[in-house]
């Protein structure tokens, strides 16, 4: 596929992503803009609001499977979570526990807490975290799709990693603190936020996929995200929360920290993972990278 024929997920709005993710015509929005209100907290600061408060929620189908979706709009306030935005996501996850769709799909495109309503946003993210875990404990897979211009950062980076699985594109970024924040606090020698290649080697989709932090890597293409989500859902069995899985994850994380804890660049990690020519990783296409990962020693 050439770049020119792709329908970029990265550049699309939340509504365009939903339209392309779900079966044609199946989306039904919950609390559409006409039934909602912009954030009064932003109005108090003389900032423009949005009637959907930067997140579009509803239900629809992916290859005939009923799903609930929440799509953050990165082009409004960086997709950041405020009081209304967060409450819509929590309400959707709680509704899913009652109605039991096949899955909840979170289209994450967010820097995390909306600073203009920081306390409300932080508590809302905590509520989303609890609601995601409640949905999963009720047997519902919660799938995160990460490929928007704002990535999945801050509290939304934590939420993404609480999901059953993450589908990410090469352009997608997943981390906790943004490189700009680290540069501001710790200095440019710690993290040069303007070095885009470095930022992608540390937080980008290929790195997260190679390390196993994301289940699937897809092209920056709306149909590719749809296919990736559909493929995951078709095979997914949500396990009951139990100590065995968390013990296994604890060991994996401890081993990884012991092995790679001193590294500061994806190139070092990829070499240690057994990639013969790590310097080629940034330039190879998606299919080649997936083949490369599948050939790595386990």
């Amino acid at each position, binding site marked *: 596929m050439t770049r020119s024929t792709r329908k970029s997920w990265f550049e699309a709005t939340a509504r365009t992503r939903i339209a392309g993710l779900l079966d044609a015509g199946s989306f*039904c929005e*919950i*609390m559409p803009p006409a039934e909602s209100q912009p954030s009064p*907290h932003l109005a*108090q600061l003389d900032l423009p609001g949005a009637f959907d408060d930067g997140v579009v929620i509803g*239900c629809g189908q992916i290859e005939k499977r009923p799903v609930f979706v929440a799509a953050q709009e990165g082009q409004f306030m960086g997709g950041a979570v405020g*009081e*209304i935005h967060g*409450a819509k996501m929590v*309400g959707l996850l*709680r*509704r899913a526990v*009652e109605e039991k769709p096949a899955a909840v799909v979170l289209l994450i495109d967010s820097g995390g*807490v909306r*600073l203009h309503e*920081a*306390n*409300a946003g*932080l*508590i*809302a*993210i*905590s*509520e989303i*975290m*609890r*609601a995601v*875990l*409640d949905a999963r*404990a009720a047997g519902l897979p919660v799938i995160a799709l990460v490929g928007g211009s704002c990535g*999945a950062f*801050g509290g939304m*980076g*934590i939420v*993404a*990693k*609480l999901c059953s699985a993450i589908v990410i594109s090469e352009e997608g970024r997943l*981390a*906790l*603190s943004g490189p700009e*924040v*680290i540069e501001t606090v*710790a200095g440019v020698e*710690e*993290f040069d936020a303007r070095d885009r290649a470095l930022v992608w080697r540390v*937080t980008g989709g290929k790195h*997260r996929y190679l390390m196993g*932090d994301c289940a699937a890597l897809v092209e920056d293409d709306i149909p590719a995200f749809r296919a990736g989500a559909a493929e995951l859902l078709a095979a997914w069995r949500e396990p009951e*929360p139990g*100590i065995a899985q*968390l*013990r296994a*994850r*604890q060991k994996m*994380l*401890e081993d990884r*920290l012991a092995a790679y*804890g001193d*590294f500061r*660049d994806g190139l070092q990690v990829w070499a240690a993972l057994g990639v013969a020519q790590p310097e080629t990783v940034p330039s190879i296409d998606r299919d080649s990278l997936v083949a490369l990962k599948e050939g790595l020693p386990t």
Partner: protein
Amino acid sequence: MNLNDILDSLFPTGHTVSLVNHVITGEAMTAQGKVAVLGTTDAAAIDHAMALALSGFILDTVEKHPGRPLIFMVDTSGQALSRSQELLCLNGSLAHLASCVDLARRQGHRSLSLVTANAVSGGFLSFGLMTDCTYALSDAQVRVMDLRAMSRVTKIAHERLVALAGNSPTFAPGAENYVRMGGIEAIWPAPSAALLERALASVACPPDDRRMQKALERGGRNMAADIAARVQNAKVGT
């Protein structure tokens, strides 16, 4: 107030707690029996090692001491800010820690946290805000970001933020604001065994997340509960 004084006040009949790399783990006696004591101190910036030390201790407690309550001491300045930490997906280790607190709850362990000094963003999210109930000492600092940094990021004048902070609990730092917003149950004037016992006894079973309702009752977040309920009850065309 130093950690030992706080622990002596909370657990006058005894505690055995070790402190390694800013991480507290141990146990203490209360009138309701033994409790696990864990958390962080000295405004710890939470990194992979600290998150995994806490999550490992929670898993040990779930395995060896079924039902033993978990009492978290929270003193964190947020997450560690470094490239090597992000390289290994720090949000993943914090999510793992949050999952362990959540698993303990599902396995019947009551949990509560006490903010002893600082509670900031990612560090607070990963364990302090994951427990059944969160409390704070009266001089605790609770925030996402201080107002000067917030002014820089949002490009809103600092004086304006200070003026608005006086009457809005929504963005200004402060434990009282988190009480009004439902994130903190109550502020304790001083650490006290009686307050701890009462808090532990008051944990509802099953412990639902009622922070939105509390925020509404306290006039902190006036919209969240209504919006979540409207989303849950909205009629959706077939």
